[in-house]
Structures are given as C-alpha cells and as structure tokens.
C-alpha cells in the first residue's frame, strides 16, 4: 500500500508539507491553550491580577481563531489532495485496463476489475482523506502533549510511562482480537446475503419443490451464525471504551495525588495540575483517533493490493506506432499460419498449429463442441488475444505490425453475448462509426431484421437503451448488435454464435439479407448446429483445439469423421 500512496502522493508533496504545517499549528495551539490556562491560575488567580487574566484570555481567544483557520485550511487541502489522488488512480487503472488483452482481463475477471476501478479506489481515497487529517494529527498531538506534559513537570510525567503503554496494550488487544473477527463477520454477512440472493433467484424452483421451509432453516443457520459473531465483535467493543476511559480517569486521580505532593513540596505551581489533566485528555483523544483510522487500514490495504495488481500488469499486447505501409491485398483476406494459442499458465495450448484462410466475398463457418477453441480462434483475428506462435495476417499484413486502431477498423464483431451500451439505439449503432447517417443506420436495421421493432418504438432511433440493453428482449438485442456491426461496413464480419436468440423465421430472413448485402465482405460465423451452416462456402471443423476438416458441407460429410459425428448426433437428437 505504501508504494501506491507514495507514488500518487508525490505530485502533492508540497501540499502535504503545507497540511503537516497547518496541523502542527493546530496541535501547538491546542496544546498551548491549557498552558495559558495554567498561567491564568498561577499568575492571575493566585495573585489576584485581573488584568493578567483578561490579557491571557485575549491571547487564548486569538489562538483559538488561528487554530480554527488552520484547521479549515487543512481540511481544504486534504479534501482536494485526496480527491485528486483518487481521480488520478482511477484514471490510471481505467487506462491500464483498456490496454489489457482479453486473456489478461479474464484472468482477473471483469466484475473484479470494475470493483477495483471504483470501490477499491474509493477506499484508498477515503483513507487518505482521513489519514491526512487524523493520522498525521494523532501522533503529532500525542508527541506534543507528552512534550508539554514533560515541560510542565518532568517528575509527574513519569506517570505517562505507565499510562501510554497501558493504552497501547488495550489498543493492541483490540487490533489483534477485533480485526480478524471483523473479517469473519463480513464473511457471515456475505453468507446471509448469499442465501437470500439464492432464494430470490431460485424462487420458482424453491416453491416447485416445496422447499420454502428448508430454505428458511438454511437461512436461520446463517442468520444465527452472523448474530453470534456480531455479538462477539460488539462485546469486545463494549469493553474497549470503558477501559480506555477508566485508564484516563485513573490517570487524572494519579496526577492529583502525586501532583498534590509536588505542589505541597513547592516544586510545582498548582496551575500546572490543571494543565496536566488537559494534556492527559488530549493524549487519550489522539490515541482514540488513531484507533479509528487504524480500523480502516486493513481494508484499504487489501484494496490497494488489488489496484496494484492491475497497475503492475503489463499489457501483453504491445502497440506499434508506425504503419507497415499501405494494404496490399484486398482488405478482407484473413490468413492464419500455423497459429498456436496457449492461455497464460495453462499446461496445454487451446489451439495448435491452425492454418486456414478466409477469402473476401465468402461465408465461412467454424463448428465444433464446447472447448474446441472456436471463440479463442476468432479472438485472435482482431488481436484481442495474441497468438503464442505462428502468424495472423489480415489483408496480407501480420497483425503485430499493424497499429491496433487500424487493424480493428477491418472488423465488425458480434460477440456471443449481445451487449448493448446505455444510451440510445442511434448511439449504439454509431458505436463503431460515429459519423453514420440515419439512412445508413436504417439500412443496417433492415438487414438485421430490426427495422420493424425499432420503427414501432415511439422514439425510433432515439429510443433509450438501458444499461445492458435490459429494456430489449434477447432476440432484439442480438439483432441490434448485428446492426451495429453492419453500420460499420467492415471488410470482415465475425458472428460468434450470434443468432441463438432469434426464432426460426427471423433467423432465416436475416441470413438471406446478409448474404445479399454483404457480398464483398469476409463473413465468419461460429455455429453450434450444422443445419445453420450448410450453405457456407467453407466450413472449418474444430475438435480439441485443432482443425480437423475444412471444406463444404457435402465434402466434409464425405470425408470428415468429426463432422459426420456431429451431424449424426444432431440428427439423433432430433430423432429421439
């Protein structure tokens, strides 16, 4: 955590110096007040010098004001610094994630990356905000108060040798006992919430199997468990405050007893007693503040570990900044030469020595069981993943020699999950081509068989799309995602199982329109069922990461064992 904080606090180092100075002013003033109060007693009250009392009072007033102003200024700078620090970390994490490859993203997980970019940064930001005030303030106050106490009377300060370690002991006990319990409690809360979540998502199944009561019992166990742990945690905390208060109060008693002797012996003026009591109170207060902030540290440390992991991940795909020259071949030609791909840390490659070519103006299909590497293969083309061996050539150029933005301009990708962005239908269609005209969008919608339902919407292209496209059905989402690719008019289309949510009629109309309108482009379709790809110009059959057959439907039926097996199994399914 320290490295992260040092790195991001560095640009603010002068502000930090200023904040520390302001806090120092604050502490010194705060400590000086009891001192003046002692003077009032020693020199004003005892000698009856009213003028002195008033004069000291005026000084105290002035100091209070200085204290207030410096405290407010410190809040200003600490709020500004911590929010800027949060902003900068967030920006860096976001940019870093944008440059990670798909494999790297999946290694950490998308939901986790989202949390890291948002909540985790918030945790750090919050810690810095409190840290800049409390965490600096607490030790300065404690040290200052101890120094002042010693100055007031060295002998009496020996009491601190007893008091301070006692407090530290109590806090240490709390940290050791309570923090692990806190973590356990969090797990139990998660468990309770998980049972509830499972019950809500599975409500139909729970009721269908008449398991409402056993679910209640399951919940009860989790609930009981949470209550137990919460009780334990709360009971520890129930003890801490009274104990700390007792230590402080007994210290006051000790100060009066021993101080009384010193005063009687004439070695200490009586006003110092009052000041001494005030210092002890301040030491205790700063210790308690430190405890509060300490509680935040383990959580923030975990957050910063997660953030660091992202920031320390070097993008596995590096960018070339020069173009390798004008595209020689036709833009849609895709060629894989002995391509291999192995996920980081995996024992075996998921793709071995794949060599295949997709020509412009053809429809190509990739078929194979789950885990045969179909999606991995198509992710290699726009360099979302980088081949671990071999070459991927787009329009005759090695993808590694092309600037990424230039490479991507060749593609219209429709992923398995039809993902829409919040905004409007138009903003989604323009996602890959900001300057697309309305007529271009309508044309794409027509081909994607989405024009009818979009037209039926009261606001047409301007209709709102909720996050994740939640206000559209699965089939509508898929068609919009296809239209989005069409608007781009790319040289290469990739459809990764993109027709699964469409009903039969729509599906066949869409395919027909597609054939007609994108005749010049290279179309690559990942499919689950043979029936949907029989018309393809070229079918690539994959099994366990290898290409086991390439050809037309008839050719493959004739001489590809795996293809026949798939065809048979699908026929068998239909016949059963």
């Amino acid at each position, binding site marked *: 955590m320290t490295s992260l904080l040092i790195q991001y606090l560095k640009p603010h180092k002068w502000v930090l110096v200023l904040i520390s100075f302001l806090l120092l002013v604050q502490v010194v003033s705060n400590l000086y007040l009891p001192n003046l*109060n002692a003077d009032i007693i020693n020199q004003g*009250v005892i000698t009856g010098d009213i003028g002195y009392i008033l004069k000291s*009072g005026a000084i*105290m007033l002035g100091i209070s004001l200085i204290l207030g102003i410096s405290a*407010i200024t410190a*809040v200003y700078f*600490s709020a500004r610094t911590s929010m800027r620090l*949060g*902003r900068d970390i967030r920006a860096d994490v*976001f940019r870093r994630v*944008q440059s990670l490859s798909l494999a790297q993203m999946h290694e950490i997980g998308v939901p986790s990356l989202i949390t890291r*970019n*948002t909540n985790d940064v*918030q945790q750090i930001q*919050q810690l810095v905000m409190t840290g800049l005030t409390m965490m600096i303030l607490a030790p300065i106050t404690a040290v200052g108060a101890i120094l002042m106490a010693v100055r007031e009377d060295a002998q009496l300060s020996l009491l601190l040798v007893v008091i301070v370690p006692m407090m530290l002991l109590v806090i240490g006990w709390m940290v050791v006992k*309570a923090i692990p319990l806190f973590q356990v*409690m969090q797990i139990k809360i998660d468990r309770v919430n998980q049972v509830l*979540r*499972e*019950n809500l998502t599975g*409500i*139909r*199944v729970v*009721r*269908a*199997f*008449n398991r409402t009561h056993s679910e209640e019992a399951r919940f009860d166990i989790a*609930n009981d468990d949470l*209550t137990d742990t919460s*009780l334990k945690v*709360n009971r520890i905390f129930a003890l*801490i*405050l*009274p104990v700390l*208060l007792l230590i402080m109060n*007994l210290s006051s*008693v000790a100060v*009066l007893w021993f101080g*009384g002797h010193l005063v*009687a012996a004439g070695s200490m003026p*009586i006003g110092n007693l009052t000041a001494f009591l005030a210092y002890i109170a301040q030491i205790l207060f700063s210790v308690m503040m430190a405890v509060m902030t300490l509680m935040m540290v383990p959580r923030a440390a975990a957050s910063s570990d997660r953030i660091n992991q992202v920031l320390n991940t070097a993008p596995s795909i590096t960018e070339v900044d020069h173009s390798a020259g004008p595209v020689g071949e036709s833009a849609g030609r895709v060629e894989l030469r002995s391509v291999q791909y192995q996920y980081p840390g995996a024992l075996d490659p998921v793709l071995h020595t794949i060599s295949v070519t997709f020509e412009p103006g053809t429809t190509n299909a990739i078929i194979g*069981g*789950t885990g045969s590497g179909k999606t991995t293969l198509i992710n290699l083309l726009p360099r*979302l993943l980088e081949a671990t061996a071999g070459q991927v050539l787009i329009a005759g150029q090695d993808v590694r020699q092309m600037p990424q933005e230039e490479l991507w301009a060749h593609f219209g*990708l429709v992923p398995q999950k039809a*993902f829409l*962005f919040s905004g409007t239908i138009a903003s989604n269609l323009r996602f*890959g081509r*900001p300057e697309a005209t309305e007529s271009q969008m309508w044309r794409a919608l027509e081909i994607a068989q989405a024009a009818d339902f979009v037209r039926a919407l009261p606001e047409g292209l301007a209709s709102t799309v909720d*996050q994740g496209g939640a206000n559209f059905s699965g089939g509508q989402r898929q068609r919009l995602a296809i239209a989005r690719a069409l608007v781009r008019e790319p040289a290469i289309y990739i459809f990764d*199982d993109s027709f699964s*949510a469409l*009903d*039969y009629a729509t*599906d066949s109309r869409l395919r027909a329109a597609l054939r007609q309108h994108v005749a010049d482009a290279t179309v690559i379709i990942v499919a689950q*069922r043979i*029936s*949907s790809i029989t018309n393809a110009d070229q079918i690539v059959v994959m099994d366990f990461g290898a290409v086991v057959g390439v050809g037309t439907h008839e050719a493959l039926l004739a001489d590809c064992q795996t293809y026949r097996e798939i065809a048979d199994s699908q026929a068998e*399914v*239909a016949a059963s």
Partner: protein
Amino acid sequence: MTPSQQSSAHSSTSSPPPVRMNERPMGPRGPMAGMVPSAEKAKDFRGSLKRFSPRLRPERAVAIVVLLVGAVSVFLTVLGPKLLGNATNVIFSGIISSRIPAGVTQAQAIARLRSTGLTTQADMLSAMTLTPGQGVDFTALGHDLAVVVVVYFAASVLSWVQNYLMAGVTQRTMYRLRTEVDVKLGRLPLSYFDATSRGDLLSRVTNDIDNISMTLQQTLTQLVTAVLTVVGVLCMMLWISWQLALISVLTVPASFGVTMLIAKRSKPHFVDQWKWTGKLNGHVEEMFSGHELVRVYGHRQAAIREFDDANAQMAEHSFRAQFISGIIQPALMLISNLNYVAIAVIGGLRVASGSMSLGDVQAFIQYSRQFTMPINQIASVANLLQSGAASAERVFELLDAEDEIPDPLHAEKLNDVSGRISFENVSFRYLQDKPLIENLNLQVVPGQTVAIVGPTGAGKTTLVNLLMRFYEVQEGRILIDGIDSTAATRADVRHCFGMVLQDTWLFEGSIYDNIAYGAYIATAADIEGAARASFAEHFIRTLPDGFSTKLTELGENISAGERQLLTIARAFLANPSVLILDEATSSVDTRTEVLIQKAMAELRRGRTSFVIAHRLSTIRNADVILVMKSGTIVEQGTHDELIALGGYYRTLYLSQFEASPVENADDSVS
C-alpha cells in the same frame, strides 16, 4: 465503540461497502457524513420509528436494565470531575494555608490582606476553608481520591455492562427482523417477485437490513448515554455555577446552527457527488463488460475521454462536498474552544473574587468538554437515524406486501396422482385490461405429452405458472385427477409436478445436495441412481470430488449443459407424476445436448408432460400441441390436425422446419 456491519450486495453497481465506526461513518456518505443530512431521507420518520418499536418489545426487560445501568453509570461519570475538583480544592487550600503562619486565624489573614490592598486575594480566601500553618492535608486528599477511584471504577464497569447488554438487544432484534423478512419472502406470491426488480428486492433484504442494523448498533447506546450525559452534565454545571453554565448552554444552539448551515450548503454537492459517482461507475462497468467491442469498434479513445470527463466532475464535486462538510468539525472545535476560553477567563475572575473555588473551575472546564461531545454525538445520531428510518421504510414496504391467499383449511389430498390434468374454461390475465388466456379447455390423459409452441415472448411460461399455481387462475379451474387444484394445498399441487426449466437454478453446496433438493429423504444410492438415469453420472464422476464436488453460487463452475443435466437428475429423484419441461435453445455443445435429450426422454417415459418445445421430433410426437401467439392460445390439436387446419401453426411449421436442409432431422437453428 460499536463496529458495524457492512453492506455487501453482490451487484457491482451497489455503492462501495462501507466500514463504519462509531460517530464516523465512512464510505458512501463520506467521512463527515455523520454531520450531513444524507440524501436519502425517510418519508415518514415518526411512522417508521413507531412501527419499529414493537420489534424491540421482546427486549423490554433488558432495555429497562440497560437504561437503569446506563443512568447510574452516567451519574457516576458525571460526578467524577466534581469530586476531582474537591481534591484540587484540598491541595489549593493546603498551599494557601501553608503560606499563613500558624496561630493566625483565617479571618485575621483575610483582614491583613484587605488592609494591604489585596482585596481580590482576600475575597478568594474568604471563600475557602483554611487551616493556617498546615500544608496539604493528604489524609483528606487520599480520602477524596479513593472515592473518585471507586466512582470511576464503578462507572466503567456499569458502562461495560450497559454496552454488553445493548449489543445483545440490537443483535437479537436484527436476528428477528432478518427472520421476519425471510419468512415473508416465503409467503409472498410469485407475482410480487415478477413485478419487482430483483436488484431492488435484493437491496432491500441486504443493504437496507444492514443499514438498519448499523443504525441500531450505533444509535441506541449512544443516544441513551448521550442524552443522559447532557442532562447530568448540565445539572452539575448548574450546580457549580449557573453563570458559567449559561455560557456553555449557549454553545448548543450555536453548534446546531453552524452544523445545519454548513450541512445545508454541502448537501447539493453531495447529491452531485453521488450522481457523478453513479455515472462513472456505470461507465466503467459498461466499458469493461463490453471490452472487446470497445476495442474492435475503435471506441477506446472515446471511452477514455468520457471517463476522464466523468472522473474530473466526480473529483470536483466530491472535493466540494468533502470540504464543505469537513468544515463542520473545525467549526465545532472553534466554538468549543471559545467556550473554553470564556470559562477559563470568567472562572478565573470568579475564583479571584472569591465567588468560586479553583477546583470548581477545573471541574467546570472538564464538564464543558464533556458537554459538547455528546451534543455533537446526538447531532450525528439524528442523521444516522434518518438514513436508518429510510431503510426501515423500504423494509416495511416489503413486509406490508400482500401475502399469498392461504391454503384452504380442509384441503383435498393429492396422493398417488395418475397425471390426468384438465383445464376447464380457464381464463387468466396479468393485467386487467390485457386478456391473455381466455376460456381455455384442455384434457390431458395420463402419460400424454402436450407440446407448447410459439415464438419467444408468446407467453408459454404463463401456462407453467398456472399449472404450478405460481399464479392463480381468475376464471375456470384446473383439475388434477379430478380435484380442483385450488382445493388442495400448494405444496400438494407442486408435489405432483417436476420442473426442468432452461433457467437452471442450483445453489452453493455439493452435487449430492443439489440433486437431493427434489426429495426430502434420499440416500446416496438414490441420488447416484437419479444421476445415472439422467446421464449426469459420467460428467459428475470426472469432477475432482465426484458427487461431493462443491458447486459455487448458481453453479457457475460447471457448464450450462451440465447444469441442465443436474436439474433433470433433481426432477428424476423427486419422481413426479407430471412433468414440465422447457427444451433448451441456449448454446449447449452437441455432445451434452444429446445427453440432455436422452435424459429428458427417459424422464418423460410414463409421465404426463407439458413441454415448451423447440424440437420438431418432440412436437410431431406430441399428443396435443398448443400454439401460442402474443400471449394467447391460437390453435390446439395434433400435428396433422393443425397442418390440415392451415392456420398459424402451418405457417410457423413451414417457415421454420420445412426449409431445413437436413431432411426431417433438424431440431433447431442455432
């Protein structure tokens, strides 16, 4: 100090999970949020409080003890400074006494001072009890201090007892509230769950309950102690010096005024802060989830630009919100220091004039510090209560929702059902003005298969809802073996059915537990048998721990096809008389697909089944086909009858199946 629970909804859009400590809530509302009215306010604060109080009733006895113990503890704590002040007085008078030679009386000493013009000192001395010539009376001092030690010790012990008991009160209350909510979820009709967004419901049962729990923990003890302390301290201050007390009391409205003034100014900034936080989080979520699209569609620079913009806005608004609300603390500190100065000066003057003792001033200073702290606490607790009440309101809304119609008292028994199902003039609509199923009649003989076909969104699941009594028919009736299903208990009705839906639901637990979900008593052999019958055994055996393999929440560690097989095994074990199957269209690989098909066929053998059908083979072999379109049943009959009819089914059939290149062998288009 009371630790608090943290909210932890799973959704990534939820606000950051806060770690909150006493008086210093961190997280979504910012570090100084305790002082700032939260954006979320209860609509009817009193109402929620009133509704919540009965839930504390079982703790009445403990609560009374807590109150008494708390009162005594506060009384003792409050007594402390005064007693310490007395001790200071003993020392002070000892010092003064030692300066007066023995044999001179106090009166003489005062007179001497007056004659030398030291009237102030004379005044001060006249207010003290002096024993001239003697030093500090350590016996008296020791005695006084011993009393203080006892008082403080007792106060701490009692305060501990109070906190300890209070922890029990709050935790037990929360336990009961959570149970109440969970039981309520079991009684709500399905329509409630369908009509309410899942995220919102989840947030109510998790975040809101956590928030109430935190509010309870922090407010109850603090509020009791703070109020008692304010009262006690005020009494002590008045007792010592009403003039000084007046000054201290003045700080109360000043503190409240300043807090409110600042809070009011910071509120719009907080609103902006949360607005931008939401925007930013939403943007991050979308850009990360649609990562490959962002890249391939060349949207990366635009995404970064948009992010930077939202990020800068959020930082700016957070800064303003944090800064303005951050002023509260220093401002209160300033007020408290002004109070301190005033007391030091005026107190000093009063000691000098003999109208007050030094120990009393010292005690008063301590009191004035003790006075401002609980007042600030009450202010922050009031805020916390507001947010807690808002949560309570949302939970009460859930608890107020109407229950399912209870089962009939003398329900008909449904034992050993043969599987004869009839719909008699059944009508149903979700919305009153949108007719859905009108006057449906259907006779299903035991062992028959009913295929339900139609495009997506045609309302095929509505029939399932009615059969399972997830929803109640509005007119007509559904008979199971001649018995009106509403005359039986829901449990009995549902016991007749086995359901395998596309939306496979599994819970965190072993595969054993998940399969056994379908039957109350099942041996390991039964479970393995069911797995074998449903062709799930093979894949289960290849898992590292076989049947004991732990599934993660929702079974995400196995494939969709494997999940489907497990739900079939679950239905197998339940051994129902009637089946409801939803054939999968989702991307399941071909090999598993074959297994699923075989397993479903096996499961259907000898049972009445309702199949939401996507496969030609199922449809053609069905005894009855129900054709649904935009929510209504448009045609009904066998395949041949419907083809002969030449209506919607025929069109559907021709467009979907006939064009298929694999003759009669096609199942669906992926």
